[in-house]
């Protein structure tokens, strides 16, 4: 170890990995429906895409987690985003490609992607 910068570089790289373990109560939560219906419709790649994109964007206060059947199986994969101070946003028929935009525009920028939500789908 030759410098503080070198140490800081290791820390920053590892922060993304360990931030999974620091679930803050007031953080943003991304909940992916992972019941049989969700998995069959492709929720797993969506979940993994969220984990990776959130880390890549450096959003250490965002918690990516999963839940069971949300009850609207025809719209799976369903993803719910809970952001402090905002109403719950429900995204439907998600794909890994759509994930990138949600992470950038909503999680990072604070503006829900209206066209992916359940409101637009109906």
């Amino acid at each position: 170890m030759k410098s503080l910068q070198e140490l800081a570089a290791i820390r920053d790289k590892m922060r993304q990995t360990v931030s999974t373990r620091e679930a803050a109560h007031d953080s943003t939560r991304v909940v992916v429906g992972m019941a049989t219906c969700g998995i069959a419709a492709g929720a797993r790649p969506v979940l993994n895409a969220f984990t990776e994109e959130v880390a890549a964007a450096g959003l250490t206060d965002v918690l990516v987690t999963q839940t069971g059947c949300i009850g609207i199986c025809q719209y799976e994969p369903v993803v719910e985003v809970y952001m402090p101070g905002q109403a719950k946003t429900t995204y439907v028929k998600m794909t890994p490609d759509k994930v990138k935009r949600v992470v950038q525009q909503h999680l990072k920028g604070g503006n829900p992607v209206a066209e992916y939500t359940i409101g637009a789908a109906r």
Partner: protein
Amino acid sequence: MYRSHVMVCGGTGCTSSGSDKIAEAFENQIRTDGLDQEVKVIRTGCFGLCALGPIVVIYPEGSFYSRVKEEDVAEIVNEHLLKGRPVTRLLYDETVENGQLKSLDDTAFYRKQKRVALRNCGVINPENIEEYIAFDGYAALGKVLTEMTPDQVIQCMLDSGLRGRGGGGFPTGLKWKFASGNRGKVKKYVCCNADEGDPGAFMDRSVLEGDPHSVIEAMAIAAYAIGADQGYVYVRAEYPIAVHRLQVAIDQAREYGLLGQNIFDTGFNFDLEIKLGAGAFVCGEETALMTSIEGNRGEPRPRPPFPAVKGLFGQPTILNNVETYANIPPIILKGADWFASMGTEKSKGTKVFALGGKIKNTGLVEVPMGTTLREIIEEIGGGIPNGKKFKAAQTGGPSGGCIPASLIDTPIDYDNLVAIGSMMGSGGLIVMDEDTCMVDIAKFFLEFTVDESCGKCTPCRVGTKRLLELLNKITDGKGTMEDLARIEELAAFIKANSLCGLGQTAPNPVLSTLRYFRDEYIEHIQNKRCPAGVCKALLSYKIDPTKCRGCTLCARTCPAGAISGSVKNPHSIDVLKCIKCGACIEKCKFGAISKG
């Protein structure tokens, strides 16, 4: 990138109840389900709630699974990790309320805890230096080497008010200051005392198992402060997991250039070696520990000269305890004021206690100094099991004393404990209920010190043996009131004349039980009765003929063949044959057998 982390406790407690196999089962099941690119299994250090082991915590949800069995693993993986439904049935019951998951920090066990020394235990993989670095590991060493002079480091320790966590409570900064003269001109050593020997204490083991790098980092900081370049960790060989993880940590620190030559390119050199102790209790005493590192028989030597002047190999040396070291990196990073803001006037920061004995939540807890015994026992510890009454708590192990129920509201810090005739010690806290005989407890600790006395000085070698004989006389029902005076006189003599801390404190358990439970001693002597029903020589078992139905169960259970009687007729016990094991009382369905 893993979306979920499965933290399996790898402390000694959970390991002995099979957590190795559970971790393996998780890995296998996760592979079977094709989740091995998404979910990572990590072995951690102690979570603290050892009574509920083996413990598995799954993030990001923070679900706390307790008493996990191998056969539960498939269900947890299939339900929780695959389908996102935590298996409520297997979660720690305090974290589930009306079907909703509660945060661990809201449970009675964790709510009042403040984890400083244990900050990384259960949070990181102790065998991965990069995880330690992720939680600001080695940043304190970097700060010290690049921004602070050695004297500023010592001043920071003095300002923080940190006192030695191994027992004595000597101010750490002062110890360092005494050893700081002639930097660069004389060879000096930094040692770590990990020879944890008090019965029931396991906080040092847990720190080494859960966060070994914090000790390495702090020892390097200490070396910089006093001008040393070599360190030794003296750890007992009975702690194989701790020794292994510490060795892995030292090797990784060397590989990353955090031990060795020219650390952080500042010209500072420091390296570290492990010395294994063979388990002699006396080697936890500082001069005996150093004698043992030198390769000699572990016996204490007279002080002065103190180790800060003439220690290991005759050179100036500082010796701190594992828990003391674990506190140091956060003090450097967050400042002396932050640390001094916790605790009481003369005892700053937090203290780790190993809760054991008659308590529901056996385990490891860390609370701010000044927390009362009642909070620790009733709230964090969950109280006494089986509806029994709290009688006393023993702190400080064989060197300490007991705290009676009447003093349960005493805020715990170094000075309060000494004032009530006990001591902080390393932090073992053994809880006793109404079924505990205080004379028997005093005997237990004295037997320990008699066994562990190194034999170098007569007051300790012979004195403790004679003291034990006096106690045996009392529990055998042959004691006289004069014996009590003799005990007190001998105890004072041993304390005043022994060479080292072992002998000087050995009579403490006797003196403190005599102080608070004198009635119990007198009951043994005058009425030949043990009120708690423990001392066998004073017990006799009887069968009440009016309650006995003659079911013959007791006669069949008795291992000594002491019970006789025929079917449907009252039985009787032959007191000469009875070995007072109590098996008959447990079996009797009619409550006909009593002891007294």
